[in-house]
């Protein structure tokens, strides 16, 4: 009952477009006799990750999971506000903020056979670990294409938008980077790496792009035809929706695809670090990664897991250079107050007339 209620609430929340601003608790009782409680703070969509949590509880029936769901920015601020009271595990796709917390010494190091199997770029200092692999893709509602071919790269996308002109005005969607952590992460990262971002921003502004606060909201608008292009959506969600809605086409650009990771760390002040590590190991284990790939519709980070989704599947399916954002100190740049201010200022300046949903 409670789960359904929560799901409903979430749905409702997305409808009123405030997304998951506030904390939301999903209390999953132990499958057997309760012996321990594991507090997880996560920026991940509960519905998406639920199968993994269930698998974990099947494996460790004595553990009760208290899964607190946040928006990625809120998660970060909540962590600092409540310190030294911390959860047992912090999981979020806002890699910059996660790295900032680790850099500031909030994480406890952990090394195991499972963490050792991660590629270099998916772990840092043995304190923070990548769990899922999330390419930032763009999705089109092919209904508006009129027999035109699907753009395969950013350059082609830009061409398409220019050609379509008024047809796509107000019908391009992307993240509101001021309010969505991963939106800011991907945008600021691309900003530092490529020049095409500037042209895209200019185009978004002139085409009066609509800004969304979650992938789900954006995809919903796309399905309804409110928008025809969704830029920088998380690939796992996009593929899940595209499976249900044949009009949606997911594109991993030929020029490059930025990949972010959902990362997790065990805080130093965790009250139950033992089970937190168990959970971490489970998430990284063959079993956990396989569940992510097959049931959770999240992409497992480990390349050797071949499921329906996942890094290896992406590489097999798409001809796109996948560029994971590596974990490490360069991510601190994005968390710098002044840098953030500069990026947001540029963004705001472009969208001079605020037109946000």
């Amino acid at each position, binding site marked *: 009952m409670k789960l359904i209620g929560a799901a409903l609430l979430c749905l409702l929340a997305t409808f009123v477009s405030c997304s998951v601003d506030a904390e939301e608790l999903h209390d999953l009782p132990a499958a057997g006799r309760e012996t321990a409680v594991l507090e997880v703070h996560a920026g991940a969509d509960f519905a998406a990750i639920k199968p993994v949590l269930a698998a974990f509880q099947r494996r460790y029936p004595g553990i009760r999971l208290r899964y607190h769901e946040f928006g990625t920015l809120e998660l970060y601020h909540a962590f600092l506000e409540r310190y030294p009271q911390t959860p047992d595990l912090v999981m979020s796709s806002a890699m910059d903020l996660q790295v900032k917390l*680790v*850099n*500031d*010494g909030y994480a406890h190091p952990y090394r195991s056979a499972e963490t050792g199997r991660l590629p*270099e770029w998916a772990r*840092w*200092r043995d304190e923070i670990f990548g769990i899922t692999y999330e390419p930032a893709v763009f999705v089109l509602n092919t209904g508006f294409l009129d027999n035109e071919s699907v753009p395969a790269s950013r350059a082609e996308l830009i061409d398409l938008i220019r050609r379509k002109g008024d047809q796509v005005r107000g019908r391009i969607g992307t993240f509101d980077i001021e309010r969505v952590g991963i939106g800011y992460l991907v945008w600021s990262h691309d900003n*530092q790496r490529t020049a095409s971002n500037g042209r895209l921003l200019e185009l978004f502004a002139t085409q009066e792009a609509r800004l969304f606060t979650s992938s789900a909201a954006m995809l919903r608008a796309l399905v309804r035809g409110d928008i025809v292009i969704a830029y920088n959506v998380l690939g796992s969600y996009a593929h899940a929706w595209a499976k249900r809605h044949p009009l949606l086409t997911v594109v991993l650009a030929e020029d490059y695809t930025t990949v972010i990771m959902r990362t997790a760390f065990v805080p130093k002040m965790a009250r139950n670090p033992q089970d937190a590590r168990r959970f971490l190991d489970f998430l990284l284990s063959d079993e956990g990664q396989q569940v992510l790939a097959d049931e959770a519709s999240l992409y497992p980070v480990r390349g050797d897991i071949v499921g329906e989704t996942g890094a290896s599947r992406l590489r097999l399916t798409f001809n796109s250079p996948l560029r994971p954002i590596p974990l*490490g*100190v*360069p991510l*601190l*740049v994005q968390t*710098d*107050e*002044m*840098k953030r201010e*500069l990026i947001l200022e540029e963004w705001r300046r472009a969208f001079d007339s605020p037109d946000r949903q």
Partner: protein
Amino acid sequence: MWLRLRRPEPARWSIRRKLLLLTLMLLGVISIFALRAAQSYSQRAAGLSYDRLLTGAALQIAEHIGLHDGRVVVDLPRAAFETLALAPEDRVFYRVLGPGDAHITGYADLPLPAVETDVRHSGDAFRQYFFDAAYGGEPVRFLVLSRLLTETDFSGTIRIQLGQTTRARQALAGEISLRAVQLVAVLFLIALLLVSAGIWMTLRPLERLNRALAQRSPVDLSPLDVAVPREISRLVQTLNHLMLQLGGTLNRLQRFTSEAAHQIRTPLAGLRSQAQNARAEEDETLRWRQLGQVIESADRLSDTVDQLLKQAVLTHRLRSEQDERLALDELVLDVCRDLAVPALERDVELAYDGTAGIELRGNRFALRQMLQNLVENAIRYSEPGSDVQVKLQRDGSGVLLSVTDRGPGIPDAEKPLVFERFYRSPGNSRSGSGLGLAIVQEVAGHHRASLRLKDNTPQGLIVEVHFPSGRLS
């Protein structure tokens, strides 16, 4: 038996072990110094390379500081942090302070030292210094880079503080140290091996010598023929010399013993038959005379034994005693004085004609023996009423001692023989052991003096002993 070699005590220490020990100690000390040096060097090298990363990153940040509407704006460059990420496991802390230490961006609570030390200037615009401090529960290396920002409407110092934890530099230092340790260990082993081999090779001749000596039969006194290095060839020479002498001594002793036995056995047999005859003689007067002969024979035998002992003692003293410095003229005079009375008893005049102040190095006992024998001989063979002259004088570089008598002399044919032990001239009826001149020759030989027998005119013998200049002092 004085010949038996004393068994050597078990050696307390060996040269090999001592050399190895010394080498080990030396190598150990060198290694410790090398390791110390390597350690401090590795710390410095690692520190230097990672300090450069900090400097590079700070300079990159400094380039991205500008003014915007009179406000200092820092556009943090990703490249700066990618530079720092070359130490992939290290945390990074930074901040930028404006004029008057106003916080602009970054970590607000980083430590700053009260005193700036070791400040370096690079160009006109920058000055920088490093310091170490703990932050965030870890040791951190900090750099403070100051830049003077001057624009038309702004002038002030901007300070960039950049800190990095020290994992990577520790790891690098550890790695360099490890390499150094490995290198030192390898060198240590090689050196030890070489030195061991060197010691073994150096000591091998000694080993060979030992073996040669051990395998030698105890009666083999021939010289050793072992190839040895210069340092121990002296030892081998000494050994060979010793053995040569030992061999000579043994030979002499053997000869002496057999001769002595012969010399004693013959008179003893005579004595025995004389005593037997006396026992069988019934005539009182004859027996009396025969007993007188027994006594005379016993006296002569006793004389012989006396001489034998004397020579044994003499030989021993010559070998065992150090030569001393003595006044030869006084010694000669002394002997003449002692023998003057026995000479007069035989109605022989003893005359001494010598130069005073002749000193030489020699054995006083032996020389006295020699002089006594010479003069006694001369007296013994002199006719009553004749004289014996003893002369001592410098002769060119040496000293010449001559004893002249007017006795029967020695035929030329016998002259080379008289110095042999127990030689008695066939026509000689005088009592004597036959050892006197043998002793003279031995003593003269010891003093490197040459002996010469000359005829006196019209008759008699001149014995000349010539001491070479080397003996004089």
